């Protein structure tokens, strides 16, 4: 049934996340540049000049890299779009993820492999057949049930629908991460209230708040029963991943380009282990429990299995932000590394750290690393605790640079 053809696709919003995804075992990553991607506002973002470095890092690590160009495109974006696509072609990015027909057409002209974004809302086999003239991979709409996915996958084989590369069209689907209340992300709430279009990557996420309904006759305000009626919980399919793979999905995508390296590392690692376990026929309940626990430690709004099992209504979040069981608190930044003794030096800029603390280091070279502080030297003297302004050293495996940030992990 499941062969080694499953691809795990991780979100990358910064070089920290890129390294974290590689370290955790992703097969491919996706990222966006400038303003033509769906996370323009929320992620730090790459620029055109970063494409070369991202491509080089991915090639060296032996993974594929995809670039998202999936916003609504206006006339005045065409020049920038062409500049980006030329750079993509030149640097050997493996594919473009798009939904706008201008991007699809330019990719065809420049012969750049194309993936159809979930923004295109592909929900039936005819749509897959239409897009097969341009794309080798189609990301299905997030609202499909497993049965519908399985039908589409079966029909691709039966009708022998092949993409430009000459192989059967592959199906890609989201397996983990944030969902939104709108069908395939086509939401105008943020645009209407704040003039910030979600379809240009500027979503201000006002669906994640509570709302009251006011009776205009009596001016009486009612808080809506489901407090966060527009904010669905996050998608998590690690406990039904075997069914998902059976339905014919071959690219598993994790959402979260605006999230931190700890999120990218943990989610990628858990799904990597799960895919391997299914391939080795060792997918057990104990393992699933362990993955669920680990996934709950990083950013999430509570989990549900999305629409795959045919649920009619979403499950709504119980609070506005993350319900992760752990949270990271910024304490300082890296300053030096002593490679022979494997000791890192950090400057504490906020809060305190003490011996025994769980720490996380995030940086563009090392990605993400977790360490427990076993011994601590403050300004050259052994100590139990360090405060703001102190220079501390402690043993670290990974090489520390000035770009690394040090976080303390605390229970939430």
């Amino acid at each position, binding site marked *: 049934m499941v062969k080694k053809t499953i691809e795990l696709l991780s979100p990358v919003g910064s070089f920290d996340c890129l390294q974290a995804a590689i370290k955790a075992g992703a097969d491919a990553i996706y990222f966006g540049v*400038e*303003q*033509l991607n769906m996370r*323009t*506002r929320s992620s730090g973002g790459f620029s055109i000049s970063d494409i070369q470095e991202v491509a080089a890092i991915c090639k060296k690590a032996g993974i594929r890299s995809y670039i998202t160009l999936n916003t609504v495109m*206006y006339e*005045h*974006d*065409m*020049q*920038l*779009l062409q*500049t980006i696509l030329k750079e993509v072609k030149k640097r050997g990015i493996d594919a473009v993820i798009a939904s706008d027909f201008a991007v699809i057409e330019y990719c065809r002209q420049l012969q750049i492999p194309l993936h159809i974004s979930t923004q295109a809302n592909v929900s039936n086999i005819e749509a897959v057949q239409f897009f097969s003239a341009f794309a080798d991979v189609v990301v299905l709409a997030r609202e499909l049930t497993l049965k519908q996915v399985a039908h589409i996958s079966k029909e691709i084989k039966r009708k022998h629908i092949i993409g430009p590369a000459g192989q059967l069209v592959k199906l890609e689907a989201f397996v983990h991460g944030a969902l939104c209340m709108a069908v395939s992300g086509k939401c105008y709430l943020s645009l209407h209230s*704040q*003039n*910030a*279009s979600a379809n*240009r*990557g*500027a979503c*201000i996420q006002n669906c994640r708040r509570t709302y009251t309904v006011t009776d205009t006759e009596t001016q009486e305000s009612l808080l809506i029963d489901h407090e966060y009626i527009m904010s669905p919980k996050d998608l998590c399919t690690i406990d039904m991943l075997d069914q998902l793979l059976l339905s014919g999905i071959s690219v598993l995508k994790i959402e979260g380009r605006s999230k931190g390296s700890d999120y990218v590392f943990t989610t990628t690692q858990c799904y990597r282990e799960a895919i391997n376990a299914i391939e080795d026929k060792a997918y057990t309940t104990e393992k699933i429990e362990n993955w669920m626990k680990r996934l709950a430690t990083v950013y999430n709004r509570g989990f549900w299995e999305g629409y795959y099992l045919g649920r009619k209504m979403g499950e709504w979040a119980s609070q506005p932000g993350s319900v992760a069981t752990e949270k990271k608190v910024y304490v300082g930044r890296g300053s030096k590394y002593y490679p022979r003794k494997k000791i890192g030096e950090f400057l504490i800029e906020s809060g305190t750290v003490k011996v025994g603390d769980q720490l996380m280091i995030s940086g563009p070279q090392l990605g993400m690393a977790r360490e427990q502080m076993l011994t601590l030297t403050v300004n050259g003297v052994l100590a139990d605790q360090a405060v703001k302004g102190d220079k501390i050293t402690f043993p670290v495996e990974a090489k520390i640079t000035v770009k690394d940030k040090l976080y303390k992990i605390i229970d939430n």
Partner: protein
Amino acid sequence: MPTIIYYRNKCIGCGICFEMQPELWRLSKKDGKVTLLWSVAKKDLFILPVNKDLEQQCREVANACPVKIIKIS
């Protein structure tokens, strides 16, 4: 004199400033972002002093910017 301070790097090219105040803003065809006409670049910021009678309109433009990268001081 009120001054417009514009952080161009973060512009998403929605064009609302250009629609509201075409005499000061232009959509650049080159990179899809908006350019503040006659402004002086200072690192990543673009700065333009304007007449006092334009202040109210400039504030409305700043308020309409979806990514809040226009400030009036």
